[in-house]
């Protein structure tokens, strides 16, 4: 990398003082002012006439490149000086939203010829997103620092910062399951891993299922029965119509974190999880299971943003493979945009079971400075929401309103009340 020499502002100051000294010396007919600026003259001449370009190599390594909010990326810088290196300033430029958690990302070092130095610092990100790291600025300060050498190095690598996944304290089993491999067991025997019973052999049973110990004891063939495995379809519908708050604390980020936590929880229990972004236009991710699906969901959540639109997305346009019958739908919304009501009515009319997770803007945007005003606003918001939710509650839709930092805190108590979802297909015309 070629280095460029630039004049520092100090040159102008030195030169101005030099002129002042000479003029004052001439005017006052004294030699002292001339002697006062003599070191500045020497420094100027030394800085401009003695110009050597030091040789060094620089390497930058970032690990890991996929992490969650609050996790740290370790940045390792290796400097090898081929010639003697005067004070070198290395600055690892951090993008907005990133901060240096440990060590310093701006270092000043001097090396002898052939010397190596490894520097390390850790970077943390407060918010999900894709961040470009690895841009380095180097500035060598030879001699008097009047003409520093500048260079820019690009070791650009993209860091994916996924939303924070908080573990749920309890499992929230869905009401309806279907035959597939999963963590739920059926009451009927069939293919699976969970032991059900031992019964006498009948024609057609597989030999590998013979329970030899019992068969030898009873002198008759017995086979082992297993329970059938089942799993469920979980759909997370994320309302991206509106986002309130600052870039660092907003309702959309809270919603995204809740969605990530739910997806990770159900995928861990081997359920199929899908994701729908309900904005001006609907985008979705088909339900699937496994670790790969978790990263698909997280990657999709990474780019979630609220885009202004006059359009109203139609639930009916979402294909059945994305919104399968019998799926449990978690709707995460602030209900600030009335267009979400249309979606809720549609889902109710189509007989879907859903849980409404209400993100409170008053809670997300609460400030310590005006806590009385915040409390009053929160109270008003809650009253308004209660009015709007009364109809949904009347038909038995479970509603969880955010009361703390964790919007999923009240989920377990709501979902463990038993049969919550009546058949609401009747009397609910599709929006």
């Amino acid at each position, binding site marked *: 990398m070629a280095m*460029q*020499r630039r*004049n*520092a*502002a*100090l*040159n102008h*100051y*030195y*030169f*101005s*003082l*030099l*002129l*002042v*000294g*000479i003029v*004052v*010396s*001439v005017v*006052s*007919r*004294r*030699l*002292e*002012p*001339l*002697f*006062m*600026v*003599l*070191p*500045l*003259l*020497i*420094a*100027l*001449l*030394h800085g*401009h*006439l003695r*110009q050597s370009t030091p040789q060094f190599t620089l390497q930058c390594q970032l690990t890991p490149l996929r992490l969650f909010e609050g996790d740290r990326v370790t940045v390792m810088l290796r400097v090898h000086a081929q010639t003697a290196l*005067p*004070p070198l*300033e290395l600055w690892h430029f951090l993008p907005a939203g990133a901060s240096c958690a440990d*060590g*310093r990302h*701006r*270092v*000043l*070092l*001097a*090396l002898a010829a052939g010397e190596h*130095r490894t*520097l390390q610092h850790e970077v943390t990100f407060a918010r999900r997103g894709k961040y470009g790291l690895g841009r380095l600025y180097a500035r060598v300060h030879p*001699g*008097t*620092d009047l*003409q520093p050498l500048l260079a820019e190095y690009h070791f650009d690598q993209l860091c994916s910062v996924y939303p924070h996944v908080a573990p749920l304290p309890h499992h929230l089993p869905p009401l309806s399951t279907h035959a597939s491999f999963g963590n739920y067991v059926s009451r009927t025997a069939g293919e699976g891993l969970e032991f059900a019973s031992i019964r006498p052999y009948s024609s057609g049973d597989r030999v590998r299922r013979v329970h030899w110990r019992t068969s030898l004891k009873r002198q008759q063939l017995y086979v082992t029965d297993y329970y059938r495995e089942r799993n469920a379809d979980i759909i997370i519908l994320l309302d991206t119509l509106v986002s309130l708050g600052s870039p660092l604390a907003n309702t959309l980020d809270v919603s995204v974190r809740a969605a990530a936590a739910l997806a990770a929880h159900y995928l861990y229990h081997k359920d199929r999880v899908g994701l729908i972004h309900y904005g001006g236009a609907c985008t979705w991710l088909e339900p699937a299971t496994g670790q790969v699906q978790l990263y698909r969901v997280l990657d999709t959540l990474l780019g979630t943003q609220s885009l202004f639109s006059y359009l109203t997305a139609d639930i009916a346009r979402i294909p059945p493979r994305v919104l399968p019958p019998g799926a449990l739908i978690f709707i995460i919304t602030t209900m600030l945009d009335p267009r979400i009501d249309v979606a809720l009515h549609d889902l109710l009319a189509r007989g879907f079971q859903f849980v409404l997770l209400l993100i409170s803007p008053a809670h997300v945007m609460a400030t310590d400075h005006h806590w009385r005003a915040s409390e009053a606003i929160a109270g008003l918001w809650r009253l308004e929401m209660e009015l709007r939710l009364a109809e949904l509650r009347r038909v038995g839709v479970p509603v969880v309103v955010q009361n703390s930092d964790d919007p999923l805190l009240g989920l377990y108590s709501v979902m463990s009340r038993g049969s919550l979802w009546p058949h609401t297909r009747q009397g609910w015309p599709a929006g």
Partner: protein
Amino acid sequence: MAAYKTGLACWLSLSTLLWSLSPLLFSQARSIVMLTIVTAALALSGWLTATQLLVALSGGLGLLTLTLTLVIAAQPPNLWLGLTAGIALFALLDGSQRFAYLRHCHVEPGVLTAWLGVFMRLAGLSLLAGLAVALLVVSLPSRGEIAAAAGLLTIGGASLFVALLALVLLYTNRWQARD
């Protein structure tokens, strides 16, 4: 890191004191005291807030104050005083520039030694140059025939010198831009 910062701050404080208080050695007139205080305040605020312009202004004001003091007090020529004050001014300007880096950067071992080495080298060169000029100045009055022309030569030489220096600076700048 804190030790480096404290050390450099002490060094800068000492330079500020040496630079700004030197006029008080020759005159304690109220106006001189006021100018001295302003010079010190400018220097101090300059390196504390990393504003090089303030330090340079302090340099200019201090230069004027010291010259004024010497003229008012009608002191005999004192070249050592000029040289000492000059090195203090250089230490102040150079040190304030270095101090600005300590605000943002983590300083690895060996950096301050390199800085100090550069300063010592330049201070030594300044002393040598000062000595050479002083010898020249001392030998001039013994040659009475050219003493009358010395004033004119000084003015002409100073103008020529400034012009040459400006040319050197311009030339080296273009040279680097081409590289």
